[in-house]
């Protein structure tokens, strides 16, 4: 059976979508919304994407892709360069390490896993930036950002699930 170049291109594009979607979320996170105080607690969308793809299709979002996403998050968000890069990589590594525990479990378990991992991620970002700037950062806004991120997880995960079923399928 000979596969045409268009067919292969189509598959390649589909396989690239997890990375591109995560990248889009980095950019979407930056859109200035004129809701008072919202920009300080806006959910960290790329974290949800990285967790999701690491659980379900980690081969479609390899470590170097996570590195690039983190680096862009650092650059655009004005955080010290390397902070989100490191944290996203650690989240990714953590999920891969615990893959056997998470894969195929009910949604509640996956969500709980995200709440734990994201809690660690936010604490680490807080600690790293505090260390970087030699001062203790305020923790309240970060905590609310964490809560909102965990609350956003189900809706975004639902979109990713549908995406997996209809766009990526079993490629």
């Amino acid at each position, binding site marked *: 059976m000979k596969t045409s170049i268009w067919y292969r291109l189509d598959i390649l594009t589909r396989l690239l979508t997890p990375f591109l979607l995560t990248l889009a979320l980095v950019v979407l996170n*930056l859109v200035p919304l004129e809701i008072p105080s919202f920009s300080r607690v806006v959910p960290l969308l790329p974290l949800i994407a990285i967790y999701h793809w690491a659980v379900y299709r980690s081969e479609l979002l390899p470590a170097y892709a996570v590195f690039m996403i983190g680096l862009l998050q650092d650059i655009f968000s004005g955080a010290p360069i390397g902070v989100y890069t490191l944290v996203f990589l650690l989240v990714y590594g953590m999920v891969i390490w615990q893959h056997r525990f998470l894969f195929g479990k009910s949604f509640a378990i996956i969500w709980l896993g995200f709440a734990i991992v994201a809690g660690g991620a936010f604490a680490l970002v807080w600690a790293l930036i505090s260390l970087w700037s030699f*001062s203790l950062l305020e923790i309240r806004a970060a905590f609310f950002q964490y809560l909102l991120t965990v609350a956003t997880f189900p809706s975004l995960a639902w979109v990713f699930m549908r995406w997996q079923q209809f766009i990526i399928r079993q490629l």
Partner: protein
Amino acid sequence: MKDNSHTISRIAAPIRGMAQRFSFMALILLAVALMMLGKVDIGLMESVRANVTDAATPILDVISKPIVSVNKMISEAKGFYSVREENLILKQEKDRLLQWQAAARKLEIENKNLRGLLNFPVEPAAGFITARAIADTGGAFANSVVINAGNKSGIRKGQATITGEGLVGRVTDVGARSSRVLLITDLNSRIPVVLQSSQARAILAGDNTHRPKLIHLSPGASISQGDRIVTSGHGGAFPPGLPVGLVASVNEKGINIEPFVQRSRVTYLRILDYGLTGIVETPPIRELPASTGNKKTRN
């Protein structure tokens, strides 16, 4: 044949696993190295940030546009319901402002005459560039916005950024088409200010909360809630007298300032070119109309 490939995969799998683990560790180390490098060589990271942001500017520009129109629609719809009340308030305010205008005109003439008597050098008039905020930082850990104007439009590092209400922040990284404005609430922001009533000097230091702190207040200065804080113009490209905020609270933990500008209302910004950045580089020669300054608007 089948056995053979089985053997190969049996040997290959652990090697591949090891290679993956190794590259993962390498990426982690690289991230840590980047953080350290950023601490040592701030200039390099700033230019990387400016260039990458520049490349993404067209995308950010397009994405942020619908938000602006939606916000406009919402505020117009809101305005529709309160037209009558607002009209009444505006009329009263107009009367009050006319009195102020008369007072200001009188003072301006008096000021000019007194300056003439004293042979006081005229301060440079500030030109300005108007730009739109195209990206927010999105998070609790940094307070800055990206604007759609860079050094092609005449933006220079260190320039003051304002809205109609008051000081927003200062320009930090400048690219060709975009720049980053560090808000006065950011942890790294330090702005020399004075208390408008007593002219006591202080430094406004951001701490990532929405109420920055006042530090290094000159000893013996009295301060109370509601005092107005303006920029002092000391040591930089900031014009003196830009409104910053009001003293919100004074207690043993420190003095907190409520800025006039709310972060959520920062859409269009004016970047002041006060001509003082010319210490480092020669400013472009151009004519500045005395009162209005040179105006350039980007959308």
